[in-house]
Each structure stands twice: as C-alpha cells, then as structure tokens.
C-alpha cells in the first residue's frame, strides 16, 4: 500500500492512526492486568510485545506520512478529535471546550518513535530480565500502561490531555518504583516520586489556570496564536487587598512597594515559571530532583525506560511544545538555563562518590537533563530536544547494560544493594563481551567522544549557550500618572539577562562535561576492568541445594567470602536491545552533525514546529566562525575527563581516589551523602508541613471542637443550672414574682405610649403621621418642625399629614397625655428622597448619573440637617437623648 492509500484511510483531519498508536498499549495493559495471571508468561510477553511493537509500527507509518507532508516552512500536523471532555470558564465566564484530541507533528512524531521504539526494546529485554518474577503479568501491565500514558502525554493536543499522560506516567512510575512492594524502602521511594511530581503538577495546574485567564485557550494552536496576550503586566505583590492598613507604619513602610502599581511581572513570566516548576518535577531539576535517584529502587528496565529515556524527558518535551510562551519571558529562559546548569553540576558532583552502579547512572541522568534545560534556556529548543533523543539511546543502553551486569551478579549475590555495588564488580569485560562493548560505546557517547551522538548533541548545546540571544519582548503597558501624587511612572520593561550570561554558562557547562567524562569512565573502569571482586570463581561450581534465584532467600554477611561460577553473558533478549541501542548511541549523531558534516536534518525537521519561538531567538555576531574554537575545549573536556579516570582507576588502581578520601574525609562524606539535600528538605519543608499537620490536629481537638461542641454544651448546661435554681417549688417565691409581673403590667397601662406609624408617599410628598390611640389619650403636635409644639393644649387630633418638598427634612414631634395626665414625647424625622422610582435600583443608569450625583450631595446635606435638628432637639427636649441615632436612607447610591 502506498502513501496515498494510507492518506485515504487516515486523512490528516481525522487521523485515526493515532487511535491505533494509543489503543494497542492500553489494550495490552488491560489484558495483562486483568487476565495476565490466567494467561501465563508466554501469552503476557506476547501481548505486551505485540502491543508496543504494533504501536511502534503505527508510529513509523505516521512518521513517514509526516515526512511526506512536511515542507521546509510549513509544519505537517495530523489530528484526531475524540470527544468533548469538559468546558471551562475563561475570563468573563465564556466557555472554552476542552476536547480529548490528539495530534502528531514533527516534534511529537519523533518523540513517539523514541518512546515506542526504545520501549519495545526494553519490553523485549524485560521478558528475560523479569522472567523469574512472580509479578510478571503485573510488570507488563504497568509497563504497557506507562507506554500508553507516555503516548498520551506526547500526542495530546492540549494541555489538559497532556496532563492526563503527565500524571499517568507519574502514576505508572509510582507503581513500578514500588514494584517489589514488600520492601518498605521501595514503597517509600515510589511515594516520594509521586509526591515530588505532584509539587511540579501544582505548577502545571496553575499554569493552565493562568493560560485560561490570559490566553483563553489550552490547545497548542490556540496558545501559540494568543501567546502575545501574555505580555500584560500582573501585580504579584502586594496580594489581595494590599498591605494591611492596621499594621504599624514601621512595618507597613518597608512592606509597601514604592511603585503604587505594586511589584509587577508579565503573565508570560508567571506562566513560564509555573510551567517550569512542572517540568522541574517531572524532569528532576533543582529543587525537585531528589526523587529520581531514589526511583532506582524499581526494576532496572524501568530505570532505563522511565527514569532515563522517556518519562523524565517529558519536561523538555513540554518546554519545546510551549516554546512560543517561554521565549516571551527572558527571565524565565535565563532561570531555566541557570537551574539546568546548577542541576548538571550538582548531580555530576554527587555521581563522583557513589558506588551503586544505578545511583551513578541516576545522577548522570539528572545531570544530562540539566544539559537539556541549558539548551532550552538559551533558546536552542531543537538542540535541547536532540539531546533528549541521543540521551534516550545511550542512557537506555547504559541502564540496560548495568541491568545485564546486575543480572550476572545475581548468580551469587542476591542482596539488591550489594549486587549493584561496583566494589563487588570488576573485570566484567572478560565475561560479558557484548555488554562490555555496548556499555563502552554508550560511555563514549555520553562523555562526548567526537563523532558519537553525545558529542554532536552536547557540544551543540554548549555552542548555542555561548552564541544565542533572546529578543527582549515588548510589554503591553503604558506609562501611568498617579493622580494623588502627580508622579509619572514609566511603562514596564521586560527583564533582560546580563550580556555575559551565555559565556558563564558555556564555561561552567564545560566543567560539567569534564566531570561527566570522569565519573562515567570511573564507572566503566571499575566495573569492566581490573580483577573480579564479587566472589572467588571456581570452575565447575554447582549451586548448593536451596534457592538459586529469588531475592530474599539467603542473606550473606559482607565479610563472608563467597565462591561461585564465572559471571555469564546474558541471553539474546538482553543482548539484542543492547546492540541496537549501542549502535544508535554511536551513530545517531549524524542526524544533526553541525560540527563536521554540516548536517541539519533534525533541526530542519522540527524547525517548522518551533518557527514562532525561533523568531525570538538570535545569535551574537560572528557565531558561525566560533564553531570550531568553541568545539575544541569540548573535545579537551572529553580527553581530560577520560584520561583522568584512566590514570586514577587503571594506572594507579584507584590509589589517588583513596588517598583523597583519607585526606578530606568530610568532603567525601558530604558528597557521598548527596550534599545532604534530602536531610535539608526533611528538616525544613517536610518538617514544617509535619508541624503544621500536628498543629492542625491539636487545634481541631482542643480549640475547634472545644469551642464549638464543649463550650456550647457547657453554656446550655450552665443556663439550665441557673434556671433550675428558680424552680424552687416555694409558693411564696412564685407569688412574689407574680406580683412583680402584675406591677409591671400596671405601669404599662399607666405610662403614656407615644407610638406613631408613618405612611409615606414619596411621589406626592405627603407623609401622614398617626399616633397610636390609648386610654383617654390626647395629643398635641409640632407639625412644622420648628422644635416648638404648635399649641399648649392637648386635642384629639391623632393624625397629621405633612407635605414635604424634594429632599426636604423635617422633625415632627407629638406629645401624648393619657387619662392620668402623664405625658410622653415622640419625635419623627421625615425625609423625602430626591427622585421617584429610586427603589427600582436604577441609580446606576447612565442618563441619570448626574441626577444621582446631585441627589447624593443633597442627601448628604439632608443627613446633616437631620443631625443638626436632632441635636437642637436633644438640647431642649427631655427624652430626646433616648432616641436611636437617625438613619436617613434615600435614593442616592
């Protein structure tokens, strides 16, 4: 079937081939997970391999179809729209539909190939590596599920769908790190990985919310199209209502920013930082890298697939995907580069002192991921991503080779820690030739031997770090005049990095390259050269009765000497993936060999996808000519690192290292203990949250519950006790209370009650005031509000009608006399609102704005009038002081 046939089956706008790519691993996961135990190991392997293999073939087809369609300038993009997932509210509550949709373009197509291809090799490897394990079906179910999640992450067409895969791979990683869950440490490592990743996911969620708010889209095309909206300034300090006014001035002063607009950054910077937090979590960058070394508790194929080749590079993938957003914020870009550099150096330094073969590789991975982020941070997205690909080859090969060695060590050493300790290895090149050669190839690649893949990817990053520049974006902000102070504040400018930042990054990254070459060859020489130190090799050795394989059957004391057979090379399922990956590790660099061959295949391939971002990235003058001068130090770094390792570990048999440890034991110890970063976190962040938790529980029990439940019940009980004392049963007491009550009732009848009701009609301005009737009541009034009662004699007139003009205020008084001659005075403040129909709440209507303003002023005046009148009244009228404060209410807003 030709390409046209493929296109007629899978049209670009309804690219159902993506369903095949995604569906097969999911099917594999379901079948193996649910039915695996009943199917048997062969069927499980078959299912898993077919699922990933089929997915790989489909990815290849998709890739070729992309090649067919992609031109130099225009990116090909095939989409499959599944169904509407949900709607979310954007700014102003308009609805943004989020689809379950997948798309493939140059970037994701390439990544999908790596994931399914390397994934297939590692699946194949695992069928042998895990063959003895009871949880065989469970392992392959998780592994298939991981491939599915990873593909969702890569192929998702919008951020929320990517997030499904993003957390999905995290969950699979959690399950696989804790695969041997009967060991407490593995389960703890799994949890640590998940929670640390969640801190990153927090960033991603916040980034999504920010994007919804400012861009109004979460799909790739929408984000790219609306990215420029992110150049608006956002106040990040002070938050909410501002610095609290009740603070004393000496605290308030320093807390209040000079600029009344507050401290502001662009939305792009906020989004960039939030996104990068997510990437730092997933891709193990400072400060969230701590989970990755612990994640090596999982089976070795898992370390190769998830924690080296694919999942941990998801952060780099996301950065490339969102490149158009990142380049809008030079501050974010510089931060990414610096964090990447710091991570690269820190992890490399830790790798110097580790003895566990997988730990060294783990820190090496963290370090290499740092290099990828240096590439991203300096704007070399394609180069950073190319390092993802070459790293996938050589690091997967290294991990699988390490697994092969560990597998061989398991012939006699079953303890997990000791079987991975390179102090127990040595001379392996004699026993395991294929493993040795492939491992060497990958070591050369990661150390940067010229013409290997690692050389072309890493040195290109260094070159770009020196030569790239990020254009300063124009913030959409104008100057602002503070009306209260008449100070003019300038428009916001985007932050620009210092000019020599690139040179510093280049220099320090070069130092990292030396370190990389040294620790990788330290590992290589100690494992494959020298004498075998695991056990005494005995010809024709036979396993003693009892368990051979198995993880917890017999533990050895480390000082008890062992004997055993020659370590043996692994089976075909293990060596074939090693050879394939080893070859790729050497030769894959040809895809993007800028240095000697001027080949830009890979750069050209992804260029259309990254076009928007690339337009903001420039280079310093004369960059082209610097290629060779900048390359030579890189080659030197390789030579120094490898040569140093050879001198220390082969020529001097590790003597210099040992004497160094003796001279400065504290330095070695602190490096060996990973700079005690875990302990630092334990004491600070985790400790703080822990204390907060304890406080919350204490408060819940002794404050909240005590106040809400116990105090209330005490109050009820106490009032019951008090009331009970009154129920004495003595008739005298009851009689006394009754008499007191009768007396009170009598007083009520004797005292005159000057109570009025007012019937108001704002429209006509007639307010009729009616005094309540009573036994023998007579009244006299002060209708005109002059403060003097109108007549000296009392009459029967119980009601007066007062006519008020608009906004007029009047204080009417009435004095009541009852049959016994007791008197009482009541005052009634009347006020007519300015407008009719004020009650309809139309005060805000535009055409009435002026009227409303007048009315406001008038009612303000009216309020003062009332207060004045009442004050006068209070001066010469008894009882006026008892009146409640006047509360005029009018139609004004």
């Amino acid at each position, binding site marked *: 079937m030709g390409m046209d046939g493929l296109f007629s089956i899978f049209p670009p706008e309804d690219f159902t081939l993506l369903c095949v790519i995604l569906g097969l691993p999911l099917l594999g996961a379901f079948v193996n997970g649910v*039915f695996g*135990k009943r199917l048997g190991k062969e069927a499980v392997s078959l299912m898993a391999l077919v699922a990933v293999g089929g997915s790989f073939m489909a990815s290849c087809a998709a890739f070729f179809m992309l090649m067919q369609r992609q031109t130099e300038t225009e990116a090909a993009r095939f989409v499959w729209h599944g169904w509407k*997932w*949900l*709607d*979310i*509210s954007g700014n*102003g*509550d308009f609805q943004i539909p989020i689809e379950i949709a997948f798309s493939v373009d140059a970037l994701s197509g390439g990544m999908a190939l790596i994931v399914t291809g390397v994934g297939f090799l590692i699946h194949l490897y695992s069928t042998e590596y895990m063959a003895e394990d009871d949880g065989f079906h469970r392992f392959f179910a998780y592994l298939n599920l991981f491939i599915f999640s990873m593909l969702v992450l890569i192929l998702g067409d919008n951020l929320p769908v990517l*997030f*499904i895969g*993003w*957390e*999905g791979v995290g969950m699979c990683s*959690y*399950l696989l790190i*804790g695969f041997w*869950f*009967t060991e*407490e440490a593995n*389960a703890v490592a799994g*949890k640590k990985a998940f929670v640390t990743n*969640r*801190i990153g996911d927090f960033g991603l969620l*916040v980034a999504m*919310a920010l994007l919804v*708010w400012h861009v109004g889209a979460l799909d790739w095309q929408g984000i790219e199209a609306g990215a420029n909206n992110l150049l608006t300034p956002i106040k990040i300090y002070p*938050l*909410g*209502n501002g610095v609290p006014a009740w603070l004393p001035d000496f605290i308030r002063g320093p807390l209040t920013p000079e600029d009344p607009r507050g401290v502001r950054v662009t939305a792009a910077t906020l989004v960039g930082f939030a996104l990068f937090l997510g990437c730092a979590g997933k891709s193990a960058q400072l400060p969230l890298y701590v989970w990755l070394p612990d994640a090596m508790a999982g089976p070795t194929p898992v370390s190769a697939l998830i924690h080296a080749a694919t999942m941990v590079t998801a952060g780099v993938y996301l950065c490339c995907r969102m490149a158009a957003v990142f380049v809008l914020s030079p501050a974010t870009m510089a931060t990414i580069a610096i964090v990447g550099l710091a991570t690269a150096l820190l992890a490399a330094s830790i790798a110097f002192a580790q003895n566990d073969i997988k730990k060294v590789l783990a820190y090496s991975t963290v370090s290499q991921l740092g290099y990828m982020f240096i590439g991203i941070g300096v704007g070399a997205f394609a180069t950073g991503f190319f390092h993802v690909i070459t790293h996938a080859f050589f690091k997967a090969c290294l991990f699988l080779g390490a697994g092969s060695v560990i597998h061989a060590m398991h012939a006699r050493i079953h303890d997990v820690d000791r079987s991975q300790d390179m102090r127990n290895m040595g001379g392996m090149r004699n026993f395991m030739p294929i493993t040795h050669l492939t491992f060497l190839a990958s070591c050369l690649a990661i150390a940067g031997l010229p013409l290997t893949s690692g050389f072309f990817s890493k040195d290109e990053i260094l070159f770009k770090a020196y030569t790239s520049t990020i254009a300063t974006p124009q913030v959409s902000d104008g100057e602002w005049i503070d009306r209260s102070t008449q100070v003019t504040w300038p428009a916001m400018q985007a932050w620009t990095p210092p000019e020599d930042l690139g040179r510093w990054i280049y220099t320090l990254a070069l130092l990292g390259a030396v370190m990389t070459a040294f620790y990788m060859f330290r590992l290589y020489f100690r494992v494959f050269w020298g004498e075998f130190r695991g056990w005494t090799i005995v010809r024709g050795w036979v396993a003693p009765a009892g368990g051979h394989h198995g993880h917890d059957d017999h533990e050895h004391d480390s000082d008890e000497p062992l004997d055993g057979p020659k370590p043996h090379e692994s089976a075909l399922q293990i060596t074939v993936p090693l050879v394939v990956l080893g070859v790729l590790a050497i030769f894959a660099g040809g895809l993007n060999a800028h240095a000697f061959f001027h080949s830009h295949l890979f750069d050209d391939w992804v260029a259309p996808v990254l076009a928007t971002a690339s337009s903001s990235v420039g280079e310093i003058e004369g960059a082209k000519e610097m290629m060779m001068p900048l390359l030579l130090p890189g080659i030197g770094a390789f030579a120094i690192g490898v040569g140093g390792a050879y001198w220390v570990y082969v020529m001097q048999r590790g003597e210099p290292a040992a004497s160094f440890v003796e001279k400065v034991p504290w330095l070695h110890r602190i490096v060996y203990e990973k700079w005690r970063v875990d302990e630092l976190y334990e004491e600070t962040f985790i400790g703080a949250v822990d204390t*907060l*938790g304890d406080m*919350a*529980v204490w408060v*819940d029990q002794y404050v*909240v519950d005590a*106040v*809400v*439940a116990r105090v209330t019940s005490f109050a009820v009980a106490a009032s019951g006790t008090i009331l009970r004392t009154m129920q004495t049963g003595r008739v005298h007491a009851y009689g006394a209370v009754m008499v007191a009550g009768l007396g009170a009732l009598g007083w009520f009848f004797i005292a005159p009650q000057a109570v009025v009701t007012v*019937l*108001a009609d*704002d429209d006509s301005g007639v*307010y009729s005031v009616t005094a309540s009737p009573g036994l023998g009541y007579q009244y006299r009034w002060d209708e005109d509000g002059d403060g003097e009662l109108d007549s000296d004699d009392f009459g029967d007139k119980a009601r007066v009608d007062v006519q008020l003009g608009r906004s007029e*205020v009047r204080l009417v008084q009435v004095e009541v006399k009852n049959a016994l001659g007791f008197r009482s005075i009541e005052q*009634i*403040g*009347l*006020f*007519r609102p300015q407008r009719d129909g*004020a*009650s309809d*709440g139309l*005060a805000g209507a535009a055409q009435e704005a002026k009227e409303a303003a007048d009315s406001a002023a008038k009612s303000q005046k009216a309020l003062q009038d009332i207060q004045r009148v009442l004050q006068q009244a209070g001066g010469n009228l008894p009882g006026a002081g008892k*009146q409640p404060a006047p*509360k*005029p*209410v009018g*139609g*004004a*807003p």
Partner: protein
Amino acid sequence: MTGFSGGIIEALPYLFAFFVGAMIPRRQGWAERVGIGVVGVLAVAFVMGLWPEAADAEATQAVTRADEWPQLLNVIVFLPIVGAVAILFAPRQNPKLLRAMTMGILAADFLISLGLLRANMTTGWHFQYVTEWLPTFGIRYHVAIDGISLWMVLLSTVTTPIAALVSFGSIKKRTKDLCFAMLLLHGGMLGAFVSLDLFLFYVFWELMLIPMVILIGVWGGVEKIKAAYKFLLFTMAGSVLMLAAILYMVWAHRQAAGFVTFDYLAMSNLVLPRTAATLCFIAFAFAFVVKVPMWPLHTWLPDAHVQAPTGGSIILAAVLLKLGTYGYVRFCMGMLGGPAYDRAATLAGVAVGGGILYGALCAWKQTDVKRLVAYSSVAHMGFVMLGLFAATTSGIKGALLTMINHGIATGALFLLVGVIYDRRHTRLVSEFGGLAKVMPVYAAVFVIVTMASIGVPGTNGFVGEFMVIVGTFVSSALGRHGSIQAVLATFGVILAAVYMLSVVQKMFFGPITNKRNENLPDMNVRETLAVAPLVALIFVLGLFPSLVLDTMDSSVAHVIDKYNSGRDSHRGNTIDELRLLNPSPKGDDPTSYDHNYPVPPKSDDDESANAASRPLSTAVALGQGVSRGVAR
C-alpha cells in the same frame, strides 16, 4: 438492514461489555460474573445513551417534555417510604426476606430512576408535579428536577443499594430495623433533593435525620451514642435556624405579594430588605454548612463516620453531605444571591483554609483510617464549596461534579475500609502493612479509588477539581482574591497525594508485620459486586464527564442568573424595601423556571384579593421601623 440484524449490531457493544465484565473475576461462580457483566453493560449504556448525537436524535424523535411522566418522581420518592412501611409488616424472624425486600425495593428504585435520564434536560423544570397539600397555609406538594438535582437523585439511587448490600454482609442483628431505617433514609434524601416547596423540603430534611441517627446509634461502634447525639444536635441547630428563616420569608412574601406560600419559585422571586436578607442567608447557610461540613462546624463528621457502620458511612459521605452543598446551590444562591455574593470571598477563604488545607493536614495525621477518610471529605467538600462561592459556570459545574465524584470515591473508600474492618475489627493504620501480598484484588481496587480520590486525570476526581480551580481563578465574585484562593486550593492537590499515598503505603506495602494479617481472605463476592459499579463510574465520569456536565448547562445558567440578579437587586436595595424581583412570572410556560409559579388563592372578597395581589412598595405596610421615607 433487517430489524433483527440491526438489533444484533446495536446490541454488540453491550454483549461485548457483558462478556468482558463476566470474564474479569478470577473466581468461579455465576453471581459475580453476571453482576460485573451487568455493571459493564450499564456503563456502556450510560455512555452510549447520553452521547450527544444519540441524545439529540432521541430528542427530536420522542422525548419531549410532554412525554415526561409526571408521577415518576413521586414513585421514586415514595417507593422507599412505602417500602419502609411495608417492612414493618414483614416477619422479624426472617432476615433473608427482609433483606431481599429491601434490596428489591432499592434496586427497583434505581431502575426507575434511570427513567429520569431519558428526559432531555432543556431549560425549565422536568417531571414537575404540583398539587395542593395544605392550602390554608399555602403549602403545596411541589417536586421537580433540573440538571442539578437529577444527578443528586441518581447518586442516591446508586449508592444506597450499594450501602445496603454492604450492610447486609456485616450487620446481622436487628435486620428489620436496619431495613426500615435504610429505606426511610433513602426516601427522605430523595425527597429533599426534589422538593421545590420550602415546607416540603424541611419535612424531608428532618425526615432523613432520624434514620441516620438510628443507623449510627444502633449499629455503631463503641461511642455510638455520643456520636449520634453530636450529629443530631449539630444538624438540628442548623435546621432550626433555617426554619426560622423560612417562616420569615413566607411572612415577607405575604407582605410583598399578598398571599401565603412556601413555594421555592416564589421565594426565589423575593427581594428582601438588606438586613433581613443577610440574616436569612446566615440562617440558611448555617444549616447547609453544618451539613457540608465546613470549618469550624465539621467536628461532628469524623466522630459520626468513625462510629457509624460501613453502610451508614457510605450514605453519609455519598449523599447526606451533598444535601448541604445542594441546599447551598438551590436555596442560598437561588433565593439569597445578594448576601451570598457579599460573603463569597470570605467564605471561599474559609473553604480553602479551613477545608482544603486544614482538612488535608488533619487527614494526614490520623491514625484511624476511617477518620482519615472523614477528614479527606472535609477537604473535598472544601473544593465543592469553593466552586460554589466562585459562582462561575465551571466553578459551579465543577463543584457539582465534585459532589458526584466525592460520593463515588469516598463512598468506595468507606466501603473498602469496611471490608478490612469486618476482617480485623480494627481500623488503626498501624495494625496493617503489606496487605497487597495477601489481598491483591483489594489492594488494586484501593489504589484505583485512591487515584480517583487524589484526582489523577483520567479518573473522575481530576475533572471536578480542575474545573473548580480554573473556575475560581477566573471568578469575578471572588474578585482579586480568586486567583490566590485558586492557587492555595491547588496546594491541596499536593496534600491529597501526601495523605492518601501515605496510608496506602502503610497499609498495603512493605513486609507483613502483623501475624494476624497473614491469612486474610481477599474481597468476597458481595464486596466485589458492591464496589464494582463505583470503580466503573470512576472511569466513566473521568473520561466522559461532559455527558453529565452538558445536562447541567441550563440549570447552572439559571442558578448564575438568579445569583446575579439577586446580587444586583441586593446592591441596589439601599433603602431596604421589600418587593418581588419579577412582578409577572411566567407561570404557564413549561420552558421557564417559573413554571407553576404559585398563584394567589381565589377569594370571595374580591377587593381584598385584588389588594393583596398588588405588590406594596411602601415600607409602612410592613411595619418596618426604619424604612423608606422614615428616619427615626
């Protein structure tokens, strides 16, 4: 294509789902196979039946409002209540019969309630049924559903049979009382969700209280009486305030419109004086917030959960708490939008600080796993309330979805805790460890439900929380606090992973340290069947949430509309007047949310009837001391 072969093709997905479901159990035995097969069929039917194209096609064909059987809600609500009475006449000595009767009634109720899904949830009330009940007091029997209460009803009819199924496995004493209480509780909850008359609502609201107290107090743990009292007193305190507010509003409505009615439609059309509105809001909100529960009124919840039997906990978590949040949407936002708006930012702060963060921290530190799940409820309900306070479309929809999700995930968690409690009679985390080795299926289900509970995307938990977070971020009701509150709420997502994964690790992973755990049997058929629908729903709602969300469109728009008009009239009501928001509601338009708006009773005295029907705008007629035109 002939009808028959077409039918076969249409039936294929169902057959396939049944087959796959039936293959899943590893044990032999037809009951489990058929049960899980049926769950698979129902899941497929749910997705296919509500799929947009299918729903559209059906809408044009058959289902219009006229086809909705008006008695359907009556049947759904009163079937359990009548059943409860019928249980009283069944022999106490025959627990099997009692259980079969109860399960039968609950299953029938569930199946009947599926009929509600056939309606196309267009604007306006559905399955509305109105009749005079106590005309002297203007009390009507008025039930109806919209896109919001529809899902609450379905949540109840799904989870109550599950709770009953679980209860029958672990509770062997006083079966008759148990069945009676379960059925009555079910009826009460359903009634409260569909009532559109405040009096009727209040009756149902109180009706369900007593069976729940009995459930805790009779079949509970060691301190059951204390817990039952605490639950009763907290809830009653809220209810009484609500009753006072209802009575005031009825009186105020009579002042404004001239006739007495308890109807929700009339009440939501009322503009109260500012102070009165605020006080009414506080009274209503207090009643609901206690039920939700929100900090600091949450302390009854851990006690009630720990003491309640498994079935009681499931109903309490899955449905009863939802009455609080449902009440807030329906009554606080629907009737008293103004004060609700005024206090939204403050209350949202409480929901974030006191619910999401504080609840999560408390949950983390618990040693009793059931108490832990109870505190996690406080955190989840914090998300729900936050979404409601945000009052954006996705905030409210997300909150409603989180209500459903919480019912499913937390209900399942309580069920699973009950499973281990039945085996070990302890819930202390420290008693367990390494359970995954002896109970692999149990561990797998627990991990799946945990993932739903901490909101891993792909499961239902994520969708609701994500919508709430974004809805809060862009909320105008919360003003400049919205974004801060959204970010803090997102912190809760991290904490959720911390506390749930800690407990999973301590209970299931590591070596088996306690000898008594070495031979625990895995989940039995009854437990598997009970949890299977919940697990299916976790994925169905996680992947196809818009099947649910789209049916809420018009109802949520209506709530926001009510909320906004309440806000505007409250803001404009600077002179404390009492009036009707909309003087001429469209009571005869079935597509309006004012359909069957109460009309003043026909009176012999025409003049007084006319006078009564005229809205009085002056404050004097109300006897207001401080009112328009009067300054005292």
